[in-house]
């Protein structure tokens, strides 16, 4: 084992985004005492700069595509796609955070540092090719998220959310880890490529053993992506966490978790597909159904979007059920579209909720279209995308997913999924109805004008949603090219 592998330049480039994020995050902690902590956008701007740099870094890393650190990680299209995605999620989270932090009178440096670290963890997850790396990346992302969820430490709901997220998250991690241990026990390795080789080899371990290991890992992963029946935590956490953080949680960690979900199940465990596919099938259907139906009666917008997020996890699982490269590509595309529309929607919620996040009810959106037509119009785009109306990213996402599902002859899942999306239309419409068809509420009347950051935070995801809806080809082609994971 040559020690100088640490100095392998190629490996370092492949690890560039994580390095940038970590270094800059650390730098922020150092700068905290130097720069004035409050009433300054410095950290936010620095964070944005860092993320853009990491974005470039990711793209640059892709020029050196290949495994790194002895196969611990791998930079391929898939990894790059998710790295870029989580970094973009980071950017979209930072933008509304400016106004949010100022309004809540909260420290900025730690917030942004934690955000960057969390994203770094997600980048690790995106590129990891080894269960132990995956585990560590998952923990980095999660622990930073736990803190972010409870970032407003004087807010009871935030405390509660953080506690729930933390306890249940760790609980699920225990299951995941047990699964990893069993995989190690069954194959003698946790490297995904090696595991796959062992699983497919003639005198490999008993598939039942691997199956149990897969089941335990499935528990952990399904929990992280908030898929049924492990979705219970999501509504409470999403509701209680600060809104920009909720936006982040619903997109970043989720996308990264799906990345490892896909990578594990589509590479190492792909040979066992016949045994896990029914499981995912059921989970997908349960997620969609529970998410959509439970959302029908919600009066809190964040909670409503949380349930919607559960349902959307179900849609992505449909793509996984398809067990094909097309399905993987569809899931990737969907997660990208979902990131834009969901963060955008949460950004609007954040904008409207006011100091102390008082206005979170569906009723508070009443008459927004009259008071702030621009905000309402942009939220409309997100909601239409969430419903799945053409020319939005959400529609194409659903379209590709169900296309992949039909290609794999999942006719019933497709039909049930599409009917589910019709049910979902109802609760998104409630928001539209509120905004456009009622007289202005107190919240809409008191809504502050859009700040520059907030404007960018709304327009950017809206443009993204529309771009993915009108010109999905670019993203989809890349996803399609990257979906053929190393096996």
């Amino acid at each position, binding site marked *: 084992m040559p020690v100088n592998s640490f100095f392998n330049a190629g490996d370092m480039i492949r690890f560039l985004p994580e390095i940038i994020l970590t270094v800059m995050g650390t730098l922020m902690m150092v700068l905290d005492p130097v720069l004035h902590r409050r009433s300054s956008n410095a950290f936010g701007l620095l964070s944005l700069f860092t993320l853009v740099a990491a974005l470039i870094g990711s793209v640059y890393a892709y020029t050196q595509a290949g495994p790194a650190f002895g196969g611990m990680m791998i930079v391929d299209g898939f990894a790059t796609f998710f790295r870029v995605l989580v970094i973009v999620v980071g950017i979209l989270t930072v933008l509304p955070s400016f106004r949010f932090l100022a309004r809540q009178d909260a420290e900025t440096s730690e917030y942004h540092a934690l955000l960057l670290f969390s994203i770094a963890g997600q980048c690790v997850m995106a590129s990891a090719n080894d269960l132990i790396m995956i585990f560590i990346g998952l923990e980095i992302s999660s622990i930073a998220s736990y803190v972010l969820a409870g970032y407003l430490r004087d807010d009871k709901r935030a405390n509660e959310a953080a506690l729930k997220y933390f306890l249940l998250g760790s609980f699920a991690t225990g299951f995941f880890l047990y699964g990893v241990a069993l995989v190690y026990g069954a194959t003698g390795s946790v490297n995904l490529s090696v595991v796959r080789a062992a699983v497919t080899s003639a005198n490999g371990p008993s598939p039942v053993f691997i199956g149990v290991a897969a089941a335990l890992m499935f528990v952990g992963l399904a929990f992280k992506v908030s898929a049924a029946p492990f979705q219970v935590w999501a509504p409470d956490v999403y509701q209680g966490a600060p809104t920009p953080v909720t936006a982040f949680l619903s997109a970043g960690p989720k996308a990264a978790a799906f990345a490892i979900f896909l990578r594990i199940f589509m590479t190492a465990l792909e040979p066992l597909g016949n045994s896990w596919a029914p499981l995912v099938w059921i989970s997908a259907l349960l997620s969609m159904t529970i998410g959509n139906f439970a959302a029908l009666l919600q009066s809190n917008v964040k909670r409503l979007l949380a349930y919607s997020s559960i349902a959307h996890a179900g849609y992505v699982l449909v793509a996984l059920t398809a067990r094909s490269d097309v399905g993987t590509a569809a899931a990737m595309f969907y997660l990208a579209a979902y990131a834009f529309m969901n963060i955008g929607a949460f950004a609007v919620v954040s904008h409207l909720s006011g100091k102390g996040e008082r206005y979170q009810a569906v009723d508070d959106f009443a008459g927004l*279209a*009259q008071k702030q*037509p621009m905000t309402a119009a942009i939220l409309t785009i997100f909601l*239409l995308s969430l*419903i799945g*109306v*053409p*020319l939005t990213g959400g*529609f194409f996402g659903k*379209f590709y997913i*169900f*296309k992949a599902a*039909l*290609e794999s002859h999942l*006719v019933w899942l*497709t*039909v049930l999924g*599409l*009917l589910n*999306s*019709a049910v979902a*239309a*109802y609760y998104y*419409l409630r928001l*539209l*109805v509120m905004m*456009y*068809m009622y007289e202005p509420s107190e919240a809409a009347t008191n809504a502050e004008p859009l700040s520059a950051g907030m404007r960018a935070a709304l327009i950017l995801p809206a443009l993204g949603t529309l771009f993915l809806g009108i*010109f*999905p*080809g670019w993203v*989809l*082609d890349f996803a*399609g090219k990257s979906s053929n994971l190393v096996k």
Partner: protein
Amino acid sequence: MNLLSVVLFLPLVGFLIALFIPRSSPQASRTWALVISLAIFVISIGLPVMLDNSATGEQFGIDVPWIATPAIHFYIAADGVSMWLVMLSTFLTPICVLISWRYIQHRIKEFFAFLLLLEFGLVGVFIAQDLFLFYVFWEISLIPMYFLVGIWGHDRRIYAAVKFFLYTFAGSVLMLAAIIYLYNRAGTFSYPAILAMLSSGRLMFDSTEQLLLFLAFFIAFAIKVPLFPLHTWLPDAHVEAPSAGSVMLASVMLKMGTFGILHYCLPLFPSAARTCAPWIVVLAIIGIVYGALVSLVQPNMKKLVAYSSVSHLGFVVLGIFSFTQLGLDGAVYQMLNHGISTGALFVLVGLLYERNHSLAIADYGGVATVAPWLSTVFLITTLASIGLPMLNNFVGEFMVLQGTAIANFTWTVFAAVGVILSACYMLWLYQRVFYGEVSENVRRHIPDLNLREWAVVVPLIAMMVWMGVYPMSFLPPVSKATARVLDQAQINVPFKVELPRKVEVARAR
């Protein structure tokens, strides 16, 4: 420049520009909407003028790749049927602008913007040749209508708007599944290509497959038509919608359903269509009679007209599923007719509402005394609607029933009952609203037509007469297109008797 794409995109351009007109000058919004919609109409006249009636197939085609994988093209083209439906949309939009001139009193800018967006969606639905594109337009047209009903509607507008949206959306998701399935089987979304594959036998569906696909498409369309018993969204949507919304809804949106059945269901799934035809015909006939009977007892003018649409559209479906040239031509013609005459009815009901702020029949009476011209125009429209010869509906109804009779005479016997009933409900309505003693309220509030309103009704009346007296201005391109549909469906049921080539009649001189 491709004429069709100009007609398609001008409304979108109009919509985008309308978004940037300041809220503070509603007059500018109105004027802009009128100018652009009139311009679109004038340009769209080029379609029938330039249509080459000797050529077969779609015309004005333009095919631009849009998305690489899956291969989705921006592919539009028009045939005889879609061309007229596009014309119907472009014709009615300026009329809708005019009737909304004073009717809409708040959020004026948005209203006209949505109206233009609606036009964009509607035009697109009729000319899309790529199934995916078709679905895109199908959904796009839903959104502005949802807002038109939901924002500018009456008391129960929200219930109606949501019901409208969910009904249609629920139906269309199944269609989406079917479209995707078709793509997975055919490898393309291009509708002409799929048809070519079907007719060359390169693509075949077994009977179950075909039946399920057919139903997936058909249910989506049937909701839109709306076919009994999927019609209950319609009365609510109509009653609550503002005048212009009702007009566009009844005149053009419902045609999306019948157009879809004609244009997609029959050629794509001929044997399934044939298998289902008796059932669908039964539903259509029930719809005709049922719609008319329910219409008879409505206390609300708009609801009455809405149920009458259920009845009228039943004729269209009936004609389509007669699988005869006459029936199909009649069905298409009836679509256009219904667009004009029911559109006009909604316009006129809207004018009454604008004056008296009530849709209840009981609040009127004796209007003919105070507003003779309004009454005359309403009467002509009523007569058109009940199928008086030399007005438009008669031609369509005659052709549909005749086509149906050729296919199955028993169907005709039941369907023709609707013709009797239509006279009952429309004349009774007319009697209660326009005849009788004039109340003080009516006398005070209902003036006769003003100049702007004349500009609205005259084109409508002119179309009713033109289409009734000389339908051959419109029918030849339609026949061409429907003949192709029948041909593609390979189910052309010939006349039972050998026809003489053409009945030679002695001519004078």
